[in-house]
């Protein structure tokens, strides 16, 4: 086993990886950019190396600097997390050439499966059904218009190198293609350093369901079942579940065996995710394979009890899988909400800035994988996700109830987050019935609009708000006239004197 691992990432996933290292008795080494000097992952690591200016292109995407830091620290392995360099074949190769272990699949597997275009070809060879579309990156928007004309609108543009909704665009018509194509390639370049995009037929109201696979270097491949990731806005997942809300063990088995077949065909080892679209008739189509740890891995961990990061590190160290397919059982139900620094009331506009207050939820069934702390300035340079909140329950209903409770306890001050949005989604009937597809959020937002009622009466929460506002105002007025009387916690004096008379 490794003694020291360098974590080539930031935010919540760096914290998650640091925790996995601690659980295995491995010393975690962090890297950080200018904007992340005081980041949580730096504070929790044993060592921390500065790797450059704030934009990822000058720090977290510079493989050379990261390998250099690994060498200096004496780390034997590099964990890339997700995003950044996690699916760059050249980086995996450079790590191995530097005599270090890349904690992920082989460079050859990344090359084959990490590129969406090659992956589709490989999946077809492995017998998996696919959605019609190109298997080659498009040259320009004219090329895109030509292909789209053949397979018929609507179509989807996707980054060849990426995932997570970046560089992804639905195109409804010939006319929209020009603008959409340039936005998609620019986002792809900005997010992954590669502007290539490809195209595929857009299937309406599909479920987005993925299979988690786990494989060692000796050809043992298992799957850990599905995750339902249909709840997306801007093609980015925001809520994930395990099992899928239709909870169909027979479908799980069929999809699982297909995913294992694809992984096997790619000579795959490490953790990986095979993504499918599932239509209303439960037909599934291979979408792509993510050759890395997935953001939403916690829901699988909660339901199977398998620590995916631990297994991934062990496999990288050359251990054989000790878990067989028949050891995997799925108990209860888990759900994850991605807490983003975004304003749900302003169309999910990014909301970076200082977190003035942070109260995180806890208690039965709750797991909070956070990358921030009170007082932290969420930078403009990186992904807006500040935390992943997950809830487990013996049933889907129990998981939802616990998630609602946890969202109620969660408070983030100073910036806007998606917490209020999730509260509303979890109260939604369609959601509770499990009627989920990738169009859910759009329909949900329509329902929300019609549901808003303006109410003129002052109820008790309003009275409470008025009392607090007036108290604050009075305190400030007092401190203007008597500056010395203004203590940090001057209301505590009330407490001291505060024998509240009651009947």
């Amino acid at each position, binding site marked *: 086993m490794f003694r020291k691992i360098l974590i080539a990432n930031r935010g919540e996933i760096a914290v998650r990886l640091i925790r996995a290292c601690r659980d295995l008795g491995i010393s975690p080494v962090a890297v950080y950019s200018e904007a992340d000097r005081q980041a949580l992952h730096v504070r929790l690591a044993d060592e921390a190396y500065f790797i450059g200016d704030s934009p990822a292109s000058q720090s977290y995407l510079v493989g050379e600097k990261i390998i250099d830091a690994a060498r200096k620290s004496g780390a034997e392995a590099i964990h890339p997390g997700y995003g950044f360099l996690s699916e760059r074949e050249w980086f995996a190769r450079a790590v191995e050439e530097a005599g270090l272990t890349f904690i992920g699949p082989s460079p050859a597997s990344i090359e084959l499966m990490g590129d969406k275009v090659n992956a589709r070809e490989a999946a077809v060879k492995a017998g998996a059904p696919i959605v019609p579309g190109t298997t080659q990156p498009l040259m320009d928007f004219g090329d895109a218009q030509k292909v789209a004309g053949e397979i018929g609108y609507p179509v989807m543009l996707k980054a060849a190198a990426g995932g997570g909704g*970046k560089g992804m665009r639905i195109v409804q018509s010939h006319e929209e293609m020009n603008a959409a194509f340039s*936005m998609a390639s*620019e*986002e792809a370049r*900005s*997010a992954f350093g590669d502007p290539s995009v490809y195209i595929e037929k857009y299937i309406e109201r599909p479920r987005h369901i993925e299979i988690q696979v786990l494989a060692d270097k000796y050809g043992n491949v298992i799957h850990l079942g599905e995750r339902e990731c249909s709840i997306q806005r*801007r093609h980015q997942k925001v809520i994930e579940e395990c099992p899928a809300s239709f909870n169909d063990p027979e479908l799980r088995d069929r999809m699982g065996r297909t995913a294992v077949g694809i992984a096997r065909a790619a000579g795959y080892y490490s953790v990986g995710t095979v993504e499918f679209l599932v239509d209303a008739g439960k037909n599934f189509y291979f979408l792509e394979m993510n050759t890395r740890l997935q953001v939403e891995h916690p829901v699988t961990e909660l339901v199977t009890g398998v620590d995916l990061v631990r297994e991934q590190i062990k496999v990288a160290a050359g251990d054989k899988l000790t878990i067989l397919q028949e050891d995997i059982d799925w108990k209860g139900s888990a759900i994850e909400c991605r807490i983003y*620094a*975004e304003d749900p009331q*302003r169309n999910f*506009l*990014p*909301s*970076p*800035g*200082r977190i*003035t*207050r942070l109260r995180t939820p806890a208690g039965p069934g709750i797991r909070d994988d956070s990358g921030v702390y009170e007082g932290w300035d969420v930078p*403009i*340079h*990186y*992904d*807006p996700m500040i935390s992943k909140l997950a809830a487990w329950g013996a049933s889907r209903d129990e998981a939802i109830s616990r998630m609602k409770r946890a969202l*109620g306890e*969660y*408070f983030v*001050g*100073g*910036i806007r987050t998606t*917490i*209020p949005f999730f509260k509303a989604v979890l109260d939604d009937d369609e959601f509770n019935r499990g009627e989920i597809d990738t169009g859910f959020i759009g329909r949900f937002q329509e329902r929300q609009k019609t549901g808003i009622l303006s*109410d*003129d009466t*002052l109820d*008790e*929460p*309003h*009275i*409470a*708000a*008025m*009392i*607090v*506002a*007036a*108290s*604050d*105002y*009075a305190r400030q*007025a007092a401190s203007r006239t008597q500056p010395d009387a203004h203590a*940090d*916690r001057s*209301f*505590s004096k*009330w*407490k001291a*004197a*505060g*024998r*509240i008379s009651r009947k």
Partner: protein
Amino acid sequence: MKLDIEIGGKIYAAEFAAGNGMARIAIDGKIHEAAISEPEPGIFVVLINERVYSCVIDQTPAGRTEIHVNHDLIPVSVFDRKRFTGGSAGATSHGRASLTAPMPGKVVRIMVKVGDAVAAHQGIMVVEAMKMQNEVQSPKDGTMTEIRVSEGQTVNAGEVLAVID
């Protein structure tokens, strides 16, 4: 203390008194009483008829004071009656329109030049934050008279990016 309190777009005349862990507020002649304490700085527990309201006073990065009651944001502002001048007069545009940054971020592309004619909803520039690109569009037909930022520049939320006449 006589105050005007704006909540939900309506302004209420209020009379407020506090001390000894209690607060009293009269609104439209109706008196509300509450026990109030501050267990953590800026976090208040307000008990009205034994019902618990956890209130947080918070400052946004833009400097605005906000109050959350049981974690729901309730927009409320207080004016001293003596000082209240009757609503802040936001200067109206008179045909001129400012384009402002919708969020903190970086200007990654400017698609027009000073002097260009622009149409309503035409994309003027793209601001990027947190890997998301947002197109800033013209609010009206007109002429681009001023561009105050350049590509690559970091901007704050609300900062004026350009002016259209």
